[in-house]
């Protein structure tokens, strides 16, 4: 009899392993960037408002900001846009847009139509800056601290939950208190 119950015992052990596997898997779903804890890669890129004027990452240093990688060709970016507008209106942290491999006119049209959540938008026509940041697919969002260090990275459209639990929660108290 016990001989025939053996498969059952093995199965029970397997279920335990799988259950623990599921419990641990949410963290695995997040693509951790090796850049977290490292200085944000520097860039010097034209701004969308005035392509003749270049924005350097040096100008952004000294305060916390969110770098959002987007493009008009990216369908999820449209889904995320409303969330970005809400974030802008909350004034918790400035949003910097990195317009990735995009057409300038289309980008302007997009922002005119859907509203512009960004303090400044820089243009990455070649896609080289996105490569420096290890961008996997738009949209991607980086939280960078006042020392210019990448604190957090999120892949995919931002949700309200991610915004409050992951981004606002990481901001220093005085910034978050202004909500």
């Amino acid at each position, binding site marked *: 009899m016990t001989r*025939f119950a053996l498969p059952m015992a093995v*199965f029970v052990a397997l279920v335990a392993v*799988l259950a*623990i596997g*599921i419990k641990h*898997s949410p963290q695995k*779903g997040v693509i951790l960037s090796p850049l977290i804890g490292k200085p944000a890669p520097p860039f010097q890129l034209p701004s969308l408002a005035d392509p003749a004027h270049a924005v350097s990452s040096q100008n952004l240093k000294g305060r916390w900001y969110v770098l959002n990688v987007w493009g008009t*060709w990216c*369908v999820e970016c449209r889904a995320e846009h409303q969330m970005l507008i809400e974030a802008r209106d909350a004034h918790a942290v400035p949003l910097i847009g990195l317009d990735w*491999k995009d057409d300038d006119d289309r980008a302007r049209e997009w922002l005119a139509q859907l509203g512009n959540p960004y303090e400044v938008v820089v243009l990455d026509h070649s896609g080289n800056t996105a490569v420096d940041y290890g961008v996997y697919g738009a949209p991607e969002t980086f939280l960078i601290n006042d020392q210019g260090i990448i604190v957090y990275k999120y892949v995919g459209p931002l949700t309200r939950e991610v915004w409050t639990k992951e981004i606002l929660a990481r901001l220093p108290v005085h910034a978050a208190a202004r909500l």
Partner: protein
Amino acid sequence: MLPELGQFALILALLLAGVQAFFGIAGPMLGRDRWIAVVSPAVAGQAVMVATAVGCLIASFVGNDFSVSYVAGNSNSALPLFYRVTALWGAHEGSLLLWILLLAGWTVAVAVGSARLPPRFAARVLGVLGVVSFGFLLFTLATSNPFLRLDPAMPDGRDLNPILQDPALAIHPPILYTGYVGFAVAFAFACAAMLEGRLDQTWARWTRPWTTAAWSFLTCGIALGSFWAYYELGWGGFWFWDPVENASFMPWLVGTALVHSLAVTEKRGLFKSWTLLLAILAFSLSMLGTFLVRSGVLVSVHSFAADPARGIFILAFLVIMIGGALTLYAWRAPLLKSSAGFDLGARESFLLFNNVLLITAATTVFAGTMAPLISDALGLGTVSVGPPYFNPTFLLSMLPLTALLSVGIHANWKRGRLKDSQRLLLITLVAAALIACGLVFGIYEHGHVLTPVGALLGVWILLSSFVEPIQRWLQGVRVPRGMLGMTIAHSGLGILVIALTTVQSFTREHDVALAPGGSTTLGSYQFRFDGVAPIEGPNYDGVGANVTVTRAGAPVAVLTPQKRQYWVQHQLTTETSIRMNHGNNILVALGEDLGAGRWSVRIQIRPLVSFIWLAALIMAIGGAVAASDRRYRTSRVTEAAVPGVTVGNSA
């Protein structure tokens, strides 16, 4: 409107599956024949409803209805029509729907084919299949509804994952799933036998054709997946021991053991409880495969859908199905007694070795696949298990298996007198050794230790598998389909072993940076890189290169590898270019743009690599031939089996 109709059809299908499960299991238990009469109509109705749901989703894909979330996520108006249809199974929700459709198809086939079975037994089989179907339908409706709407609708879809836009991968999932799901039939037969508390040789005879058919589909499906990986992933390998590949390979190994163990149960009434256990295992591993691929527990290059909430549902479902079956097994299997015995040298012993070795192989693959999970669960950190583990451990059980096959194929049932066939055994062995030497040292000039061993074993299997049918043919005795199928499948295995040996021993690979006009030599071939030019497809653009291949000055082929950039997902894919020449597969893949017109180019020459997939196809054909044996279709009255009587000499 169509998506709502589809969803409604799915809900009806769920209800009908419930009816099928309840009346199919409770009817025979309580002895109510009128309940049993409900089962077949429920099966038919469920199949119609599932087909309607699938039809609705396909129509949404074809009609570019981007208000359906699943369509918006996996299709695009620029996607060619063929891929808009196959995008149905391009992600999780649709794959599940495909699984359910195929299960409904198998169930209908069983319902039609079970006309010759005792009605109560048939009802139990259909009842168990109803439980499986109910579980998957509930899973789909609760966590993975493919008909969810988006408001507002997307202007255009996000496109099908570019690496899935390929003919081989488009037809790979349906064939693979047909195999996976086919083991549900063997599982249902096993559960029905345990519910009835009776298992005899007739049971094995009913179960065999279904199991063999499912095994054939699974063989084809795995081969197609390997073929796709070879030319689409761009690395030029054909097997990566990736968790998703392993997920399909484990049921195959156990299914192969089941096919052989069923032969013993049918012919000799032995291995009864073992056969039951294998039937449960084969389907459990199929479901586990779904779990591993879909739950995000194991991350791999193939898994394109991962969601822990779904994982919990699948795990609960696994506990109910597999746990239930194993409890039934612990309770009922001790009742099954085998009266007959056999000698050490009899065919039964060789099939026992076959089973032990196949299960050992499946266990090593299982251990390797699960090791990262187990180590994670025990808090030992993340480990990664790759080919350095899988190759030698797998070989460890496969070498004796292939060697014993050639011997066992000559053995008789019940009596172990190998003396009778000693001479034949020796003749085939010597002939195999001669051919293997010719192959290794004649055609190819070098190799490593395992090369002659592999070549010998492969050729030996090939020769041995033909001995029995040729003997019969010489004696003027008819060769039954079952034996013919076995011969074809075993010769396929022989070819596979030979092909794997030559590929592993004689592959040449070369990564080189080439400027336009530059050339390089690999083996006896010269490759001239003629530079790259822009290309444009229906939903992608990119660059294509021309590589002219010559052999001793004579032109062989112009290969055109490509790098594609798909517009919507901005994903780069590598399209290798492959040409056959004198049994060699010449593969060229474009690497990186090194600037100034220079590109890194990967060149591979793999001898006989196509024979790997050809061999798998031959094995699958063998299975199909064996499954179509007339023996399985004759009425049960004339085939009343007497335990312990040797029926024939074929397996």
